């Protein structure tokens, strides 16, 4: 039986980042992935690197992680593009929300600019008339996440990590990970299987939350920033069965990525036309010109959603040598690098840059 210092189960962006961070510390690492590396929620995602301020713990982890992303900005495969984020206010109430958001982000050390209505249209002339203003976060960026997952796994392999490609971990037993071909690997395990978490760790509640995205043909210069309605965070945290929120991203290719929808209890991967229509109607309210552009494809993905919106990061109480990094919902790309560093620091018994207590899996296991 092969023995490793760490066996990472799952090579989405989170597992890939954990593999990379552990290999960089000189640990002997195995990583197990039954499908394509970065092929699940990672490939379905927008790849927006963004700090949400609704939860202080989320914000701390996002801030830390965004700093780590800067180390990848010159890697061509990451397609790192610092377009900045522009949060939009459509009503006076939204504008008050912009003010609160600005305050919370500033307090956390994020560079932000409040933008008045006139400046808003100078920045983004395609926006619908009548908006009240917005909040610009110039340092935020977009990446192509599945490429980054592959890059991180390859970097780890160049440092000796072993990829068990096409293999599925089917059981955790007595300090070993059992693969579907009967192979057993010995060593501490780190479970990063996203929406499949319940297969190995059923004690951690996790629900897939379906989302839709649409990508257009190339229309360079149509918008410059990633644009979101300021109520996006509220929509993301709202537990309603189905909701949509305006969220449009300019890809470096000139294409536009249009979101967003959120649905619990919809296990089918199929694109729902009613949901697509609702999502696009929302987008057209903010960017009427979008309606004249050509869409190329629509697809869906599933966000791994924990019971309280925070990821599970840390050890499982009472299970020595069993770690988890999962449940990042829609923020997994942003927070993957920070989550990985946090986990590796915990595993090595070192102090963490971010307080790990709010993410401890023990919080949901009482």
């Amino acid at each position, binding site marked *: 039986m092969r023995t490793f210092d760490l066996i990472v189960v799952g090579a989405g962006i989170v597992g890939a980042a954990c593999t990379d961070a552990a290999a960089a510390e000189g640990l002997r690492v195995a990583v197990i992935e039954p499908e394509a590396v970065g092929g699940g929620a990672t490939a379905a995602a927008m790849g927006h690197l963004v700090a949400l301020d609704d939860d202080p713990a989320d914000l701390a982890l996002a801030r830390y992680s965004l700093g780590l992303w800067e180390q990848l900005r010159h890697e061509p495969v990451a397609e790192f593009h610092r377009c900045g984020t522009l949060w939009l206010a459509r009503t006076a109430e939204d504008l008050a929300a912009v003010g609160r958001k600005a305050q919370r982000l500033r307090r956390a050390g994020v560079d932000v600019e409040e933008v008045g209505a006139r400046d808003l249209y100078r920045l983004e002339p395609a926006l619908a008339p009548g908006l009240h203003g917005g909040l610009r976060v110039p340092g935020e960026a977009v990446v192509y996440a599945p490429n980054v997952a592959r890059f991180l796994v390859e970097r780890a392999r160049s440092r000796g990590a072993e990829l068990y490609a096409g293999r599925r971990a089917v059981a955790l037993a007595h300090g070993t990970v059992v693969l579907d071909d009967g192979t057993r690997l010995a060593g501490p395990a780190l479970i990063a299987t996203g929406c499949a978490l319940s297969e190995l760790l059923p004690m951690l509640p996790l629900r897939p939350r379906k989302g839709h995205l649409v990508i257009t*043909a*190339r229309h360079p210069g149509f918008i410059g920033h990633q644009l979101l309605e300021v109520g996006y965070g509220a929509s993301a945290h709202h537990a309603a069965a189905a909701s949509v929120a305006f969220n449009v991203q300019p890809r470096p*290719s*000139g294409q536009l990525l249009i979101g967003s929808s959120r649905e619990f209890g919809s296990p089918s991967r199929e694109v729902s036309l009613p949901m697509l229509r609702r999502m696009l109607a929302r987008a057209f309210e903010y960017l009427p010109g979008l309606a004249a552009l*050509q869409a*190329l*494809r629509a697809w869906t993905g599933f966000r791994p959603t924990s019971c309280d919106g925070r990821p599970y990061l840390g050890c499982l109480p009472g299970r020595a040598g069993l770690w988890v990094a999962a449940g990042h919902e829609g923020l997994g790309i942003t927070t993957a690098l920070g989550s990985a560093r946090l986990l590796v620091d915990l595993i090595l018994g070192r102090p963490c840059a971010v307080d790990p207590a709010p993410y401890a899996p023990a919080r949901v296991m009482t």
Partner: protein
Amino acid sequence: MTVRLEVDGRAVEVPDGATVAAAVALVSPVFGRSSRGAPRAPLCGMGVCFECRLTIDGVPGRRACIEPARAGMQVRTHE
């Protein structure tokens, strides 16, 4: 019966009922370029992959594979 159209200024004749993609393929293997400059040409042939987009009579983004060739059409590849 045949129809005559122009692809990048060159006269092309195809059987009536042929697609614009068929007409273009007679004169150019490349229909367009990806954002990184890689050559593009029809893949699915049924309007799904969008790899055959070009400009027809001044309108960009038309899918050549599902557009019947018509007499006098002015087709521009994005080569």
